[in-house]
């Protein structure tokens, strides 16, 4: 715990002013128990929620970064679930914490926060394909499930996170079992997973049957879904996506129908507000 308060006062004197010492601990030491528990609790929460970012920047930097984040953005919610909701903002405001890997770190933080949202975000009644067909495309406005996040990313963070989690799982299995030689030990993996390659990807992070998924999207599909979120009519969204595409020899009618069949099956589509 810091030895001086923000006004320069000595913490041991401040603590002694309102906390009784006992026969074993000074007032400062008693207060310090709470301080330690606070930091263990909140840092542990971010450690669990952002394994990908931890792998990108390394464990030591991650601890320093998250300590700085929580110092600046203390929890403003009754639930620890929301603890990381301003981490992206923090990394944009203080990029020195991720230095040369800022773009990758931001991709990863956005991706990992989207998973928090997908896990327990609200849902609306899905709109059926028949209901979609009942309204002319030029008038139809659709919404997407609140728990669904659409991400345009510059790195293949989805594959990277899968590799990171597999590696951590393998290490845990090795520590838990008596099969000493058959599972990797953490000391052999200090170098961590290979950083993800730079690759433009479009991801939908969602849930289906209450299981978390992430699905890569074609660029045109991403444009359609993003425009639907903005309240653009179905007709205009599809026209814009096709016009902007650099792909040729595509049966766009069939392709778009296939996408909408998939999205309906996944219950992504609902009525717009």
């Amino acid at each position, binding site marked *: 715990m810091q030895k001086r308060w923000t006004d320069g006062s000595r913490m041991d004197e401040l603590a002694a*002013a*309102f*906390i*009784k010492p*006992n*026969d*074993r*601990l000074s*007032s400062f*030491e*008693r*207060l310090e*128990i*709470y301080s330690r*528990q*606070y930091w263990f*609790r*909140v840092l542990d929460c971010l450690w669990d929620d952002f394994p990908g970012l931890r792998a990108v920047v390394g464990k030591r930097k991650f601890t320093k970064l998250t300590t700085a984040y929580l110092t600046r953005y*203390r*929890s*403003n*919610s*009754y*639930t*620890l*679930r929301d603890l990381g909701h301003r981490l992206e903002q923090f990394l944009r405001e203080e990029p020195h914490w991720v230095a040369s890997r800022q773009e990758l770190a931001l991709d990863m933080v956005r991706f990992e926060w989207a998973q928090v949202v*997908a*896990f*327990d*975000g*609200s*849902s609306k009644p899905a709109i059926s394909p028949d209901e979609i067909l009942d309204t002319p495309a030029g008038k139809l406005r659709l919404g997407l499930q*609140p*728990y669904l996040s659409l991400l345009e990313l510059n790195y293949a963070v989805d594959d990277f996170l899968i590799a990171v989690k597999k590696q951590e799982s393998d290490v845990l299995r090795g520590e838990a079992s008596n099969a000493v030689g058959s599972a990797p030990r953490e000391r052999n993996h200090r170098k961590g997973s290979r950083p993800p390659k730079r690759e433009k990807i479009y991801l939908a992070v969602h*849930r289906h049957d*209450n*299981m978390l998924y992430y699905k890569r999207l074609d660029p045109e599909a991403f444009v359609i879904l993003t425009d639907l979120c903005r309240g653009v009519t179905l007709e205009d969204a599809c026209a814009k996506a096709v016009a902007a595409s650099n792909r040729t020899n595509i049966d766009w009618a069939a392709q778009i129908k296939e996408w909408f069949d998939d999205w309906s099956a996944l219950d992504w589509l609902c009525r717009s507000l």
Partner: protein
Amino acid sequence: MGSELSNSDLTEGLKPASENIIKPMPANPYNGFTEYGIGIGLRVPHYQHILAKKPVVDWFEIISENFMVDGGRPLEVLDSILEQYRVVQHGVAMYFGSADKFDRTHLGRLKRLVKRTNTPWLSDHLCWGSVDGRYTHDLLPMPYTFAVARHTAENIRAARDYLEVPICVENVSSYAEFHASEMTEWEFLSEVTELADCGILLDVNNIYVSSKNHNFDPYEYLNNIPHHRVGQVHIAGHSKFEKYILDTHDHPVLDPVWKMYAHALKLAGDTATLLEWDDRIPSFNEVHHEALKANQFRDLQLAARTETAA
């Protein structure tokens, strides 16, 4: 473990037979007049086992804040559990002792959850934990003063009126005491619960932990609270460090705590009991087996009462 406690231990303090009123404490208004037995906390590592094997469990305690979400798997699991089991809500963020007004979002979500679970009572802690909308996510002790007691009781009443469910307030374990305190912790608990007319979730492990950290006799605590207000009991494990004990909920219940539990039953009657195991959680069977040890003490207490009545 059980061999350390004899019938004489359990009958210690009882008056001569003719003066004993040997009746188990009836279910009371603070636990919704229920007679739940031994419960355990509903924890993520056990979900699969519980949903697949459907073990016989008297009741589950859920942490309210874990299910005050908008959708997804937590609510799916909760609804499956509710189809087959009795559930009681236990909160960690009401902060009855806080100087801040209640977070209306939190209260609204809590009320929706209360309706969903139909919990017969709701518990939370005698503590504070937030200032100016910033949360510590901890259960912080308060100075034990009459003014704080009045303020805390007012909050409890307001919460009960809004949530429309009996409230039991839990004594926390603590590592600090305040110069400003005007009374003991048990006097404070008594004062708050009398002013609020609410129940007590008596955490005997917390009493033990605090008694070691603050050098008081835990039995003086147990003997001097309003026993008729005890709606539920918590038991748990803790961790010993060189100069203090930490309430970690990551070990089996230790013998001194079991002994205190037996004494609590003697005073408060057969009360719904919950084993808390929240960290380094072993298998469901191991946790449930530990919880069911409480039945030995319930049975011994009932036998002691019956023997004395005869």
